[in-house]
Structure formats: C-alpha cells, structure tokens
C-alpha cells in the first residue's frame, strides 16, 4: 500500500522525463532518443526572461520570508503572552490553507488601492515579491516554530547566567540549533515562490511574466515538448537540492547529538 502510493506519486514525473527525450513532437509516437528540446530551450528568449524574473523574485521573497517568519516564530515560542498574539497566530496559519485565488485577488485589490493612495507599489517585481513573502513566511514560521520549541532553553539560560546578553546567547547558542530549520524553510520558500502561478498572475500586472505564468499559457494550449524538457530540468534540479540539503541536515543533527553526548559524559 505504502510503496504503491509512493510510486504512483513519482510515475507522472518519470513519464514526463521520458517524453522530454522523445525526438518526435507527437506525444504518442516514439521518434527515438533526442536532446533537441533541451537545445531549443536555450533559444527561447521569453522563457529565459521569465526564468530570470522568477529566480530574482524567489531569492528576494524567500530571504524576506525567512527574516519575517523567523521573527514571528521567536515571538510565538518565546513570548507566551503579548497583545496581538492570537492575531499573529491566526495570520501565520491562515495563509497555509487559504485558497491562492482568494489571496491573489485580495492582494491585487490592496496593491491597486495603495497605488491610488500612495503612488506605490507599481505592479511587477515589487508586488510579486511582497505577496510571495506573505505566504512563504507562514511556512517559515511553522517550520522554525517546531524546531525552536524542541530546542533546549536551558542551554541559552546557562549562557546568560555566564554573562552573555540575550541577543548574544540567542546568536551563539540557539541560532546554530535552529539553523537546519532556517535552511530548509528558506529552500521551501524558494521553491514555493518559484512555483507560484495563481497569486503571481493576479499581482504581476500586464508587464511582468514569471516562469509558471509562461508555462501555464503554453501548457493550456496543449502538450509542448520543450516544456517537457524544461520541467525535467526544474524537477531534477530541485530534487537534487532538496536531497542534498536533507542529507546535510541529518548529518549535522547527528554530529550535534554526538557532541552533546560527548559533552555530557
């Protein structure tokens, strides 16, 4: 059951990668092995431009989300009582389930109204980044929150007893402990931002097109072999990054656990 379930999750991606090497542009005919579609990608200016915009947005948005989301996680874990705590909890959790289409249209209406009132922000890079930061920071908070809760508070308190300021104690003790969560939530934000179609379509405005927007408009017209090639590249690149990051994090955790055991003995 488990293996059947998991292998079904992967089948479409494997078939897609197979199709991307099909020399024939017809999907039901195998025209032999070819990498022509990959070569064709390099000459598609529209696609390259959109990919560049998406990368820039993803880097900016995941960095912003990492900062805001981590602050929110610290606030929620460390400060048990403050005014607005319930509001913050609600606003952190709601974007995880809120249908993208609602977030997209409401944020667009905000940006348009803001532009009328303050002459800022113009639709494009800025608005896409702002809305991506909003939903990505929710994922960051959830990830960092659970890690922070598991972190042993006593270590930080010991550092403060030894004279470290709260900030220094946090930076030198807690930050290394939650570092794996920070890395994985940055990566998660990056991939979510890179992948977002619906929210971007609403807030991007007529001038800007992200990669998913270009892919969607091509795919909507039917199967296109160069998108198969592009999809294979994206899926493999992201997969490799995630597996590497996961491996490094598990290894880091093991080493830390070993250090703690050593210090304890």
């Amino acid at each position: 059951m488990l293996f059947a379930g998991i292998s079904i999750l992967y089948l479409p991606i494997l078939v897609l990668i197979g199709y991307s090497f099909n020399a024939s542009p017809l999907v039901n005919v195998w025209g032999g092995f070819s990498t022509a579609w990959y070569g064709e990608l390099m000459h598609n200016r529209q696609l390259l431009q959109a990919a560049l915009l998406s990368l820039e947005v993803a880097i900016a948005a995941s960095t912003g989300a990492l900062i805001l989301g981590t602050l929110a996680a610290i606030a929620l874990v460390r400060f048990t009582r403050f005014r607005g705590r319930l509001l913050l909890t609600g606003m952190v959790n709601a974007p995880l389930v809120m249908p993208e289409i609602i977030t997209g249209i409401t944020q667009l209406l905000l940006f348009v109204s803001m532009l009328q009132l303050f002459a800022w922000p113009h639709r494009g890079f800025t608005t896409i980044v702002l809305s991506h930061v909003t939903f990505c920071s929710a994922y960051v908070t959830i990830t960092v929150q659970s890690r922070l809760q598991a972190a042993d508070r006593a270590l930080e308190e010991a550092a403060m007893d030894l004279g470290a300021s709260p900030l220094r104690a946090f930076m030198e003790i807690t930050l290394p402990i939650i570092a794996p969560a920070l890395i994985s939530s940055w990566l998660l934000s990056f991939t979510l931002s890179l992948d977002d179609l619906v929210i971007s379509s609403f807030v991007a405005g007529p001038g800007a097109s992200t990669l998913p927007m270009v892919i969607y408009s091509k795919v909507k017209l039917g199967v296109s072999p160069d998108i198969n090639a592009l999809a294979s590249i994206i899926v493999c690149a992201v997969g490799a990054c995630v597996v590497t990051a996961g491996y490094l994090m598990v290894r880091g955790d093991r080493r830390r656990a070993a250090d703690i055991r050593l210090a304890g003995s």
Partner: protein
Amino acid sequence: MRAGTSKSHNMKNPWRPGRWLIILPPLIFLFVFFLIPFAFAFKISFAEAAPRVPPFTDVISWTADHHLQLRVTLGNYRYLLTDQVYGVAYLYSLRTAFFSTLICLLLGYPMAYAIARAPKSTQNLLLLVLMLPFWTSFLLRVYALEGIIRDNGFLNTMLLRLGLIHQPFHIMHTGVAVYIGIIYSYLPFMVLPLFATLEKLDPTLLEAASDLGSTPRRAFLDVTLPLSIPGVIAGAMLVFIPAVGEFVIPSLLGGPNNLMIGRVLWDEFFGNHDWPVASAVAIAFLLLLAGPIAIYQYYNVRQIEA
C-alpha cells in the same frame, strides 16, 4: 530540568525590552499584506465595474463640497444569487473537495500508519520520499499527470498494449481527471499531520489494550483511531480548504463542465475584467470557508501549543 525552565519563566524575561522589535515586523507586515486586503475586497465587492483604471467605481469618495460620499451597490451579490453559474460552481467545488478529502483520508491513513510503524531509520527516508514531490513544482506535476491520463497517454497505451482494454479510457477533461489531480497533489498534506499524531501515540497504550484482551482490530478502533482524530481533522482541512478553491487542476485537467469556483473567479477577473463581481465571489467564497478555517485554526493552535 523542567522545573528549572518553568522557574525561569516566572523570573523577569530578559527579552522584555526588545521584544516589540521582534513581534512588530511580522505582525505589521502580515496585517497589512494579508488581513487588510480582505477589507479592500469587501469594499470593492460593493462597487460597480467601470471603464477606467482601476476598473471600478469609488465606494467612498469626497464630493466637491467636502462631504464624504458613500456609493454602495448590492448588485454584485444579487447577481451571484440570480445567475445559476455561481451556485452550481460553489456546490460542485464543495462536493469535489469533500470526496477528494475522503479518498485522501482512506489512502493516506494506511500510509501514515505504515510510516509511523516503520523503524526510525527507514522513517526519515520514507518521509523524504513522500515530501519530495511536494517540493517540486505543483504546476508541473499537474501537467505531468496529463501525460499519464491522456487518451493516448501512458496509462491507456499500457492497457491497450497489454490487451486489457480495446478502447482507451476517456479521463482527460472529465470530473474523474479533476479528482485524480486533487488526490494526487494533496495526498502528502493528508499523510503528514496523520503521521505526526500517529507517531506521538504511546505504544504502551496498545500493549495495555492487548493485555486486557482486546484484539488488534478492537485496539485500533478503541485506542489508535480516537487518539488520531486531531491529525485526521488537520489533514482533512489541509486538503479540503485549498481543494475547494483549486484553480490549476480543474483548468488543466477538467473539461468545460467541471466548473469549480476558483475557475469562475479567474474567468470573471481575467476574462470579463469585472473586478467587483470577482471580489463578491471571493467574499462569498470566504464566508463559505470561514467554518472550516476556524476548525483548522482551533486544532492547529491546540496541537502547536501542546
């Protein structure tokens, strides 16, 4: 150790002076960019479409003699009630999301159970393998699914070659394709919260049940299942709520009859350029989801604080 931690909680929190520097940035940002937008959508849902930029009339404006003017129309909401498309789309979306959630639960529960019972070393690998597709593009995965279920796709080609069928199954652009898409895309969201609760389950409880003479089946029904209800609810909400508003899946895999509310909203906005009606659809949709979102928040907060 625990006593020491709780004692220091009572002591003066050393973070106190700087804590608003930590709390305020996310609080203000999310308030402005997540909560305030709903107020604007609410306002604009009472406006009228107009050929200008932005394409709707002012609800609140200043007249020439400095009076505040309020121009509210309920026409958009009346339109939602009278035009059948919206009612049909809302119902169709709710029904599709409900049955997809149910199927995800039936498939996901045994998977989560198997992962929770697996040895620790395999567990991490299984979780990684389960989550990996979630990390790769959602749009591309939905597109990849088309390669499987198309009339001349992988599934039909295989079945025809094996001689199991003589006519290809017509799945693409039907409701079945939408179901397959939603279940395929959202299954991990069901498995993860289920796994989280099943993993925390104390195995001595099951031993106690069996010592007291209950069969494994009884023990499952009386102990495991009730204790995993929070996970079931969290998973169900994580699938149900986004599925109701799903756009990409019905748009790429569904046919013209599979009119889900996300698609209607999209068409209203990008096709008809009627922003006020699109706002009204969004607000009505949000009201519909308020209940499930509140349930999700309640269980989520309880689980995190626990």
